[in-house]
């Protein structure tokens, strides 16, 4: 009796740890996106400070590719939009995952109680 419950508990705990890993992964991904967002914001602001006399380069691989200022601004703007979208997507995903985690945690606590009861019975 206690062993069965224990195995179940172990399996559930593994599942829970996996879920936790997923959560932390998406969390880190989201944080990356956050830093990228701030970086691109800074780039945009600094591009605004430049004028047409300045030449803009984009580092692609090992090569610096010359870019037009307006073009660079447009691409940076698009990049910002994309990053914002990604952040929102991750936000929803994270919420879902946290909900699941909460439910799983409750299940774990109930299982733990069951296990303790079983232990008490055997003891």
């Amino acid at each position, binding site marked *: 009796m206690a062993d069965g419950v224990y195995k179940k508990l172990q399996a559930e705990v593994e599942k829970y740890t996996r879920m936790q890993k997923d959560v932390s992964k998406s969390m880190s991904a989201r944080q990356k996106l956050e830093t990228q967002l701030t970086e691109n914001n800074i780039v945009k602001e*600094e591009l605004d*400070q430049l004028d047409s006399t300045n030449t803009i380069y984009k580092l692609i691989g090992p090569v610096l590719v010359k870019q037009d200022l307006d073009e660079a601004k447009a691409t940076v703007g698009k990049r910002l939009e994309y990053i914002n979208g990604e952040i929102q997507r991750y936000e929803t995903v994270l919420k879902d995952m946290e909900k699941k985690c909460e439910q799983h945690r409750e299940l774990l606590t109930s299982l733990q109680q069951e296990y303790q009861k079983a232990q008490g019975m055997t003891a």
Partner: protein
Amino acid sequence: MAEKGKMNIEHLGGVFRLREEHEKVVKDCESRIQHWKKVSGDYEALNERLKTLPDRLCYDIMVPFGPLAFMPGKLQRTNEVTVLLGDNWFAKCSAKQAQKIVDHRMKYVKNELDELSKTRENFEARVGFAKDLETISASKGDYVDIREEVGNNDSAVAKGKQRIAHKPNSQPKRDAVLDVKEDDEEEDGGQGGDGGGGSRRGVLTEQELWARLDELEKLEELQEEQDRLSDNADMNGEDTSTSSSEEEKEADAAPPVNGVSLKPSWSAAPRSKASLSTDRKQADCEEEEEEEEGSCLPTIFFSHTVEPKKVRINTGKNTMLKFSERKEQKEHSKRKKKNGHNNGHSHHELHKITTPADIYRVFVDVRNGEPVPRKSILKSRSRENSVCSDTSESSAADFDERRVMIGRSFSHDEATHSDTSDGVTEEDSPVAVPLQPTSRFEAFSGTVIEKDPMPSGVPHLTISPPALPTILERKQEEAPPDLVPPQPAPKRVSKFKAARLQQK
């Protein structure tokens, strides 16, 4: 974010863990602050460099050549800088522009530093709080107990909700009670008397009732003397059978007894035969009171007026019956008075008080008159007239039959009776008045009609008539009082006489 999430999760863990996490956050903030400080220092150095860079056309420098070697070289185009904007974006710009960009980044770094320092202070405070918690709750058991109490509170909250649900019901009840008290028991009269309302009123007015009873006894005595002097012809043996029983009952029921029984009588009186007798007695008492008022106290008058109105208002048919009963009762009372039965009179007064049910009915009628739910004041007046006519016409007629009818009417729905009675009363009223010009009944009807709407309801409700309502009644009835007194006397006398005759 992750840290905060962990923080929330670990808040549940315990004070120690809470403090640890807070300290972690603080440490993290400090490391970040260190990082940003370094960055800002670098930017400051860069800014300095950019300032001085364009000062010369070319610099002799050692150029790093791979990780290990340096080569001597010259730095030319000192005013041309390629700036990494971030995200692999580069921009070729002058030293001045580069300085601008550096300033911009410095601002950003400053913001970051400020925010970090703020969060650090925040979490330092939290750490202090956690430490306090640790010290305060040296015994963690207290903390656990508090949680249990919270659970109890939740259950209590649930109870509270249920109570809230009840509260709406209870409030209306309270309101209804207040209304009943204030509105002169309209509802009770219409419904034949609610037990609850009657009991409340009785409780409130017991003392008042007793005082009232004493007054009524005195008044009855006075009336009896008057009746003896004036009304000798009214004494008839018509009502002997019924009156005798009633008188006996009245005599048996001492004034205090009646007062005690007032509460129950209110609820049950209207439909039972006993209630009928009590009603009659009340009517007699009212009449007596009116008579007495003419001589001494106005309060008595009010009560009389109210009762007739009650009867009329409650049920047209009933009113008719009641009136007839009243006449009979008046006759009985007159007889009794003539005979000198003070006790019987006092009992009648008590009955008046005791028959709060009748009063309720009257009140109800009054209320109806005010809100005009069932019958208007005019109708009640018409009923009064009709009653007078009835009394005049049938005063000498079969009292027993009338009583029986009254009893039936009480038991039956009053509304149906009221309609019929109204029509009859209106038609009969004019005729009745002329028929009995000298009789007290006529005077009574007129006075009753005027007084009924306002004063009658108030005194009956309180049982012990408040000073204000009584005064009003007197004022209203001032014109008719002379007529009123004569009517009640003969009726009462008739009852007494009848009772005596029956006994004999």
